[in-house]
């Protein structure tokens, strides 16, 4: 499986004329700039969050229950909108997206939840394929890409099974396959191990790390200490009292040269993709 063609689809979504925004690939994939989110006036959830996530990072987001982890992720896939500040995805302010553009944003973001969010009466294949069908991809391409995604999550050959007959761990793998099947630039995981026993939780964490290895940015919200300790190499951000605290630098911060190299490859890929007559 190829590395994600970061920004290519998203660039097109923003620009109906289809020109790829060359500069997007050099920008951080995600920037939260002075973000404020308030549900109840007396207790703002996010008071002022400034956060930059580079391409190819694996970032843990943690904090006690109710701290605002889910809210932060929702702001990114535009399930909620900021009250103040900006959320820049590939350099674009998604708070200012028109409702018509939101689906295009979501096609470039994979999301995985604690409760899997599978359609129980659909087959495993259908649950994964849906992410490609909504984009109008031809059936032949869908079949091969779904097969690849299922293979990546260790569910090769399970496509025909109904989602509801799978175990919890398997269901979460299906959800991961759905999130990665269209090779999004970034994957958001909101307590993806919350419903799984500790061994399966580590399993799923391993799966996200494999996906990260292949170049995808991962933003992983969890309050499970065991996971944070299991992978000390990842950057760790704590949400506390409505602000983010940089608790641990990730390996990426030290591997700047590698990151730059990778970004350049992404640009080349994306430009090549954008030029293909579709």
């Amino acid at each position, binding site marked *: 499986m190829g590395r994600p063609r970061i920004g290519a689809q998203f660039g097109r979504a923003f620009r109906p004329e289809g020109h790829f925004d060359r500069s997007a690939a050099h920008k951080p994939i995600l920037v939260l700039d002075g973000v404020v989110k308030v549900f109840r006036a007396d207790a703002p959830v996010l008071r002022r969050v400034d956060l930059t996530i580079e391409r190819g990072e694996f970032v843990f987001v943690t904090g006690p229950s109710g701290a605002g982890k889910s809210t932060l992720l929702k702001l990114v896939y535009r399930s909620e909108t900021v009250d103040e500040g900006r959320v820049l995805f590939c350099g674009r302010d998604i708070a200012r997206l028109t409702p018509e553009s939101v689906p295009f944003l979501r096609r470039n973001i994979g999301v995985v939840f604690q409760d899997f969010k599978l359609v129980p009466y659909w087959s495993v294949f259908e649950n994964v394929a849906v*992410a490609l069908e909504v984009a109008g991809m031809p059936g032949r391409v869908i079949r091969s890409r779904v097969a690849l995604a299922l293979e990546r999550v260790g569910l090769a050959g399970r496509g025909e099974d109904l989602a509801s007959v799978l175990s919890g761990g398997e269901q979460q793998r299906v959800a991961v396959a759905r999130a990665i099947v269209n090779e999004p630039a970034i994957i958001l995981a909101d307590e993806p191990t919350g419903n799984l026993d500790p061994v399966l939780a580590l399993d799923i964490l391993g799966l996200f790390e494999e996906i990260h290895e292949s170049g995808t940015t991962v933003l992983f919200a969890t309050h499970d200490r065991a996971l944070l300790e299991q992978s000390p190499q990842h950057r760790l951000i704590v949400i506390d009292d409505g602000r983010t605290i940089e608790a641990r630098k990730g390996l990426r911060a030290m591997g700047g040269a590698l990151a730059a190299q990778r970004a350049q490859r992404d640009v080349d890929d994306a430009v090549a993709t954008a030029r293909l007559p579709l």
Partner: protein
Amino acid sequence: MKVLSRAMRGVREHVRTQLVSVATVALALFCVAAAALAAENVGELSRRWGAPMRMTVYLSDHATAEQIEALRSALSGLSEVRAARYVTPSEARAVVAGDDAVLASAGAELFPATIELTLVPGATDRARLSVLSERVRRLNAVSDVETYQGITAQVQSILASGRLAAGVIALVILLCAMAVVSNTVRLSLHARMREVEVLRLVGAAPSYVRSPFLAEGALLGSGGAVVAVALLGALFVLFRSRMDSFMGGALGMRPVFLSGFMIAGFVLGGAGLGATGSALAVRRWLKV
């Protein structure tokens, strides 16, 4: 096609609800189709009876045979008249009396001699008919003219109010059928909340999320229409012979079924009705 298969995916999951819904729609549309069938046949009746086709010319008592024959041939020469037939008093007595012995034994002079005119269909609207009757009235040997305008006007107005009542009832029934579809789609929406949530999550356009539900409504509606027309057709064939002898005898016509054009309109209308019903539900219950 893709939309239909996505709609069917939902239908497949909730077959019971959908069947109940199709049955309800079918029942409602059956009533409407039956009304349409009745209207079709009443229309046929109206064409036959709604327009005056007959005129009776009463002859004065002292008219001679030559005068009568001259009048008859003069009348049959009129462009509005297709045929003119002389009915003698004894013939008139025979027609009126039938099996009644008392009437049959009455003197023939009690029954007036007439010339019965059969008019050319379409040649006789209300205005031309009164002009014609005035002209005939002034002819020699004519005592009176009956144009049956009173009766035809009555038939017309009964038919018109019947049509109006049937139309109102049909409208109510159609609205009910629409509400049924709307409710079914609403149930379907609730049952498929997870699906909708997933679609939105993976970046489906709002129209992509909505379309299977609209298609589902259209399927329910047209399915109901097909069932209703099939049922009505079966009943029609079953009872045709009885209806035939009754209607043929009393009304002088054969019963007609809905035309192919009307059946197609019915199925399309069912689809439109279902789609409208589901659009109402989608608008109200599906936030995309």
